[in-house]
């Protein structure tokens, strides 16, 4: 018996969400009194693999094949399903990021295993296996029972604390099959912006709305983001106006994020916007309208014009950072 944790790697490296997943999966293994096995696909060096032990993995499997150059949901599913079978996995844990969303549903059908997606807590119960997840875009939660022998869970990003352990994981490299003949899709081009903090990974997000009045006024937001090591985001009207790129749009139909701190500047907080940010640990709002709905979601607020408040805020942060 085991809990199998699929851990994605990015060019052979893990990130915080990888460790969240291993922490989470290891806790479930503890609840089931069984082994936590982390599996990652594509070459990762031993020092990096060993890090997964530090968050509770008993064993780490690195599935390798020189042919693995791209993500293919069907081949990845076959590899994970193969290990799930071999290791008699009772629970399979993946991230609820785009890779996890591509794999978990396929695994669910392949293994006829019930899927609880986007969970943010440990199962409330093992028998029956009961999980808790956000529904109606954060306006409610649901308790769901997974009825099958094998359970699949995808964990919402930044919803589970890292738990360090003193385990020295047993690390193994396993050569797996990689069938390229069946690949029906071909990646022709990758456009990537390097060095930018990813919105979904960021601990702090600074976001601007229509209250910023014009794209020319974004300077202090970028400066603040730079000072705090934050990612920048925006509301839908801002990306629709072309003031900021579409990949910054957070909200129900844009990116759904859960940073530790979400600073909403000149954003009124319509239901659709809050749907994308309501899982943030702290929301801070700056808005001229004291009745703006964003203030009912925020812990801290400033009623005032962004153009006047922001420069003072930048100064205060500079002082804090000793710059």
């Amino acid at each position, binding site marked *: 018996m085991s809990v199998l944790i699929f851990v994605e790697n990015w060019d052979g490296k893990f990130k915080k969400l990888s460790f969240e997943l291993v922490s989470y999966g290891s806790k479930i293994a503890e609840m089931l009194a069984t082994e936590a096995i982390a599996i990652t696909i594509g070459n990762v060096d031993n020092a990096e693999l060993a890090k997964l032990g530090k968050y509770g993995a008993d064993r780490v499997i690195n599935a390798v094949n020189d042919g693995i150059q791209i993500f293919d*949901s069907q081949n990845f599913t076959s590899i994970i399903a193969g290990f799930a079978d071999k290791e008699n996995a009772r629970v399979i844990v993946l991230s609820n990021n785009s890779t996890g969303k591509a794999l978990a*549903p396929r695994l669910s059908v392949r293994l006829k295993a019930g899927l609880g997606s986007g969970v943010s807590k440990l199962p409330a119960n093992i028998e029956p296996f009961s999980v808790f997840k956000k529904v109606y875009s954060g306006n409610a939660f649901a308790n769901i*029972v997974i*009825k099958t022998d094998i359970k699949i869970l995808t964990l919402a990003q930044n919803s589970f604390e890292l738990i360090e352990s003193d385990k020295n994981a047993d690390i193994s490299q396993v050569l797996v099959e990689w069938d390229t003949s069946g690949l029906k899709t071909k990646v022709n081009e990758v456009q990537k912006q390097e060095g930018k903090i990813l919105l979904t990974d960021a601990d702090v997000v600074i976001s601007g709305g229509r209250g910023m009045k014009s794209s020319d006024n974004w300077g202090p937001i970028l400066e603040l983001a730079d000072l705090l090591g934050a990612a920048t985001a925006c509301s839908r009207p801002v990306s629709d106006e072309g003031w900021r790129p579409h990949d910054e749009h957070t909200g129900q139909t844009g990116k759904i994020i859960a940073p530790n701190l979400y600073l909403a500047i000149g954003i009124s907080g319509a239901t*659709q916007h809050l749907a994308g940010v309501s899982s943030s640990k702290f929301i801070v709002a700056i808005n001229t309208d004291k009745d703006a709905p964003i203030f*009912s979601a925020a812990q801290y607020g400033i009623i005032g014009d962004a153009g006047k408040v922001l420069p003072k*805020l930048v100064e205060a942060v500079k002082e804090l950072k000793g710059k």
Partner: protein
Amino acid sequence: MKILVCISHVPDTTTKVKFIDDFKKIDIAGIQWIINPWDELSLTRALELKDDPSNGIQSVTVANVGLVGTEPTIRKALAIGADDAIRVNADPKDAYYVAAQLANAAKSEQYDIIFCGIESSDYNGSTVGGMLAEFLGYPSISSVSGVKIENGQAVVTREIDGGKELISAAYPLVAIVQKGIAKEPRIAAMRGIMMARTKPLKVLEPVEIDSLTELISFEMPKPRAACKFVDPENPRQLIELLQNEAKII
């Protein structure tokens, strides 16, 4: 070639949801039902592709799993421009059940591209598209923000961490789409609404299949503590709160 767009019937996204029967069911009183926003964008893109005759698209079909109450939503999709529709006459039990029904419905024709929205705005599962692809044994591309047709292939833009990939894909294909696939949802014109009444809507009986999960109850989010206001003349106070009280910077 033929396109299938899977649509889900969901409460309007501004609905303040309430529950009845001991938090076991949503209170549908006063709810306005809509096509799931991502599905509506998928449909819009499918119709845009069909508008260009060089793409050679014969038809755009919509499919939904639901009881008769979802028909107004399906008719709306027909009014927007879908050619025909399939309704699988079943109460959706869980994502696996829905995907199995859609797979069965999709088998009746050779659909070259099947569109699914990344998630439905009610259960936020992000699961049906991937499950459907697996049931059918088709490749799938997720996080899709653009689909074009070039030289008898689909050319798909996929959003990845910090960028995008351009992928060419042979048919059949399941495209799981998100924001960007179409700029604005297409709106039904009066002529479309009139025509929708007579467009074919086929009702299929469900295949027998067990659900794998069961929704036990809903809960409302805990109310957040009241917002603490800081003097706009002195934002330093905010930094102090974030540092000393919230301990996050």
